[in-house]
């Protein structure tokens, strides 16, 4: 478990002080895959480095499994760091060591015997699917393979926590998907808590169960991925969600719709259990109204279905109003204005 209690971090530069992280309070539970998303410069990279004290907080407390990191001696801190694996955007592999040498390195630091290092390295190579690459040097590997080595190296000391610094940002979409699958296995099979930072909403959507959105050093929104995805409160969060999923048609399409004399449009959100019932069809039939789905999708987020439909209703205005009122009792419904898209 990782706790941030009112943590701030500022850097002094000759021109001005930079407040990279401001008053962050967050709890990452054991076995979470917790994602922190933000645009570059939002402070997420600094936040991540506070977890293993590569950066010291200016104020506030960071606790890992109940231990306040700032209270440790440098020797105790080094021991604790071995319980926290870390992977990087640019992999940061040692170019002077082979794949096996990279993976065995943290064990060498611990003074583990040669035979044990060899055994553990073999096991990790097989876990990340690189058994045939043990004696290759990093420059002989593709980006995805390098990150697999990075993950194996981070797991060598059997950590309880894995922190990922933009681990997929340098990879193509297909390789990203592979690495995310591997991180999911790390979490599910080894029970390791994963804290990752990213600017890609796709990463959050694919593997995280909880998310925090950062902007200008502050956490502006956080919670279960499903809740944040289905009901984003902050405009920045909405922008991130729209980067992977546009929830309403573009302004151009909306204006064309209106120009052609189209009816009012309503955005209807179906979450979880309500997706099991033919709600839209039941309610409209009851009031003798036709509905027309103009735009939308139904997706799975965190093993739950989430429907986002943009519909128009045809019939008597009073009946339409009744339909909307009745739907509003069970689902979220709101009118889509032509200039919104």
């Amino acid at each position, binding site marked *: 478990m990782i706790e941030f209690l009112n943590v701030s971090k500022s850097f002094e530069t000759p021109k001005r002080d930079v407040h990279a992280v401001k008053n962050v309070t967050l709890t990452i539970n054991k076995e979470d895959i917790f994602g922190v998303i933000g645009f570059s410069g939002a402070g997420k990279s600094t936040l991540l480095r506070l977890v293993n004290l590569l950066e010291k907080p200016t104020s506030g407390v960071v606790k890992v499994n109940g231990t306040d990191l700032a209270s440790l001696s*440098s020797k105790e801190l*080094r*021991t604790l760091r071995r319980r*926290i694996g*870390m992977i990087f955007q*640019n992999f940061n592999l040692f170019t*002077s060591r082979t794949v096996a040498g990279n993976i065995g*390195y943290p064990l060498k630091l611990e003074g583990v015997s040669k035979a044990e290092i060899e055994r553990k390295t073999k096991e990790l190579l097989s876990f990340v699917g690189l058994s045939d690459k043990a004696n290759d040097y990093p*420059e002989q590997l593709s980006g995805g393979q390098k990150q697999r080595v990075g993950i194996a190296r981070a797991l060598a000391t059997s950590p309880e926590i894995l922190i990922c610094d933009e681990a997929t940002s340098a990879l193509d979409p297909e390789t990203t998907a592979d690495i995310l699958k591997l991180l999911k296995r790390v979490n599910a099979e080894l029970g390791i808590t994963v804290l990752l930072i990213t600017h890609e909403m796709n990463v959050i959507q694919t593997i995280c169960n909880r998310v925090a959105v950062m902007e200008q050093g502050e956490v502006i929104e956080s919670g279960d991925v499903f809740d944040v995805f289905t009901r984003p409160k902050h405009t920045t969060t909405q922008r991130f969600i729209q980067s992977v999923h546009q929830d309403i048609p573009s302004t151009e399409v909306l204006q064309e719709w209106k120009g052609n004399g189209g009816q009012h449009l309503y955005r209807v959100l179906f979450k979880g259990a309500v997706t099991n019932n033919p709600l839209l069809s039941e309610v409209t039939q009851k009031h003798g109204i036709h509905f027309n789905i103009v735009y939308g999708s139904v997706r799975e987020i965190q093993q739950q279905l989430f429907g986002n439909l943009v519909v128009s209703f045809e019939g008597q205005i009073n009946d339409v109003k009744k339909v909307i009122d009745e739907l509003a009792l069970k689902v979220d419904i709101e009118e889509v204005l032509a200039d919104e898209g």
Partner: protein
Amino acid sequence: MKVDWTTFWPRIVEATGETLYMVLLTLIFGSILGITLGLLLFVTRENNILESKITFNALNLFINIIRPIPFIIFLVALSPLTRIVMGTTIGTTAAVFPMTIAAAFGIARIVETNLISIDPGVIEAARAMGASPFQIIYTVLIPEALGPLILGLTFVTISLIDFSAVAGTVGGGGLGHVAITYGYQRFDGSVMIVTVVILIVLVQLAQWLGNALSKKILRR
């Protein structure tokens, strides 16, 4: 006058041996001192693993004061200290002392430059894995910089052959001494040519060895 080559060849061989002796000893001691200073310069830099403004600035200033001094002047200026440390200022062994000091400062800068070119992310990764500053120095900094470092030391070795010739002119012995006494002071061009050819061969050998070693380490 003409040189009697039958007696002169053994003198040339002996002088070549003296040059190699000076260069190799200087390389060993100069590298130990220079690599230590270079590492110290690097790790005490701002935001580095053993950041210390005072140490860095003092060391930096000191190196900047020593390095621009021409070697022949440095050699003479250092002679009182050479006498204290080595017991004499004359001879091949005595020449190793000023050569080592001069080489060490040059090597320190080369080491520092090579270390700066290491990806800081790699050092951060080692810190994240719980490496101590000392472990970072000998398991990350040195292995990661070794390839370019060997090329740098090759460059230094070639300068040392030059230094040894200069040291030879003020009683250090070696090929420089032979070239000056026979070639320059007695106006014998043939001796000069022989010593110069031997120096060229030594430089070529050093460069070839350095290239081969760094190629093996850098794998390119």
